[in-house]
């Protein structure tokens, strides 16, 4: 049998994972739904006329996704944090690739689908309730003047934002950065034996500060004063009084850099997770 990937073995592994964790996952998803509903109720109570506006819905979805997704990601390989669980996990007759793929299926794909479904279930119910509350409030206070405009359920995957001359879907970028950051937390769960969430968060903050310092102080000292525009295809050299000078870079550089920034981080972290799992000793 193939020692890297066998569909049958992988399905066995995913079923085994589900049967061992279904109680925990079901309770977790129920708790998450409860927390969202409580938060939305709080919002309706605090702002009865302005409840469940778009920013609340978008904010709840993305803040929740980042926090819960990264927390869950940091527990995906938590078995490796204790010797008995680690021995049990590493001794299961499946390849490291299958184990990584199974963890990613639950941690990335299924979690994302369940979270989005839960959000929309809670959002659908609470928007209906918010509209009823807001309508009653409107009838009492504003019915003679302003028109009542009911809240709509937002599409959390679509939101146009104008950047320069182009429209970008800002929420698509949010999603990409979520998957990139979550993948770092997944890697952290293999690297760090204890407190992987906190340690990964600290490493990410340190890495972020290092990149800022490096680009600002080190790279900045080699590059003339200016800034990029239109992605990375144009560099404006600032000059006192005169017109700005423009350096145009080849389009392929811009395309490659943007592609890597958007899509490369998560897969790179997933691949590193696989190799780290392969070299894990218990």
């Amino acid at each position, binding site marked *: 049998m193939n020692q890297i990937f066998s569909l049958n073995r992988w399905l*066995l592994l995913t079923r085994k994972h589900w049967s*061992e964790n279904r109680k925990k996952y079901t309770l977790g998803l129920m708790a998450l739904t409860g927390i969202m509903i409580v938060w939305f109720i709080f919002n309706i109570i605090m702002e009865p006329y302005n409840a469940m506006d778009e920013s609340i819905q978008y904010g709840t979805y993305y803040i929740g996704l980042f926090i819960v997704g990264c927390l869950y990601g940091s527990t995906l390989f938590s078995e490796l944090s204790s010797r008995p669980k680690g021995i049990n996990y590493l001794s299961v007759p*499946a390849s490291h690739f299958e184990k990584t793929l199974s963890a990613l299926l639950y941690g990335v794909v299924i979690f994302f689908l369940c979270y989005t479904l839960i959000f929309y279930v809670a959002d659908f119910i609470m928007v209906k309730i918010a509209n009823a509350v807001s309508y009653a409030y409107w009838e009492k206070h504003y019915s003679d003047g302003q028109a009542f405009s009911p809240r709509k359920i937002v599409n959390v995957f679509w939101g146009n934002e104008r950047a320069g001359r182009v429209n970008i879907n800002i929420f698509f970028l949010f999603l990409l950065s979520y998957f990139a950051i979550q993948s770092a937390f997944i890697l952290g769960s293999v690297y760090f034996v204890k407190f992987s969430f906190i340690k990964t968060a600290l490493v990410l903050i340190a890495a972020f500060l290092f990149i800022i310092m490096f680009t600002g102080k080190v790279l900045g000292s080699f590059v003339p004063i200016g800034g990029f525009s239109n992605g990375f295809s144009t560099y404006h050299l600032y000059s006192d009084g005169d017109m700005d000078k423009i350096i145009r870079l080849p389009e392929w550089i811009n395309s490659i850099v943007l592609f890597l920034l958007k899509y490369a981080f998560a897969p790179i972290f997933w691949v590193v997770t696989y190799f780290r799992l392969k070299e894990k000793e218990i």
Partner: protein
Amino acid sequence: MISIHDLHFSYKKKKVFTGLSLQLKTGHIYGLLGKNGTGKSTLLRSIAGLLFPDKGKVEVLGYDPAKREPDFLSDVFMVPEEFYFPNVPLSYLIKHHAPFYPRFSESQFNKYIQEFEIPSDSTLQNMSYGQKKKVLISFGLATNSSLLLLDEPTNGLDIMSKSQFRKVMAGALDEKKCVIISTHQVKDLENLIDRITIIDEGAILFDQDIEHIAGKLSFRISHDSEEIKHALYSESSLKGSAIVTTNTFGEESKIDLELLYKAIVTNGPKVQSVFNA
């Protein structure tokens, strides 16, 4: 089956093995003895692919254990000293864990569970440590893996369970399997193992077949002060002095593993010289 050559292993600064070499064959139950911290568990984990050698080579069933390939993992089963079981019923093990082991036998598993007197309808979470361990041993045996590694299997078992364990193990071996039992409770392995390997200071101190030991050494109670003085090992008991001596006249005596172990640890070179003669 298992070939270990020049194994070096250390935990950060603490060296555990500095050139350990060992060959183990199928059809035997090996007793791996040694003081606490001498590397018994480390050796088992290296064989199981859970630890990687710093230097040297470990080959098990023709595989490099460190690669942890699925075919290797399905042919090796380890019962660690500290183990983990999810909170699931026994039937879960058969439904979700057993399919990973192509030679798993449900009837064998049920038979072992019965022999260990485990209620088959209970959940693992509701079981005592000893019961869980017996389930794990039963499962390991029922996988029919070529290699079974047991790390301190009798720890946490009561007197009756220890005797059940010996009975179950004795009936489970065939010429295609190899069992390695690591323990410091040597009494628990009596009449079970057929080769003794003693590790000390990261090296093999003693490695002999039980049959060979019985031919070379004699274990008995003695009242003869001269004999006691020249014994390889002696300790006083209520009946007299328990001694280990050279079996000069080819007499048959029951091997006392505890005495043998003490003799090797305290008087290793002299005991070894008996086997080299």
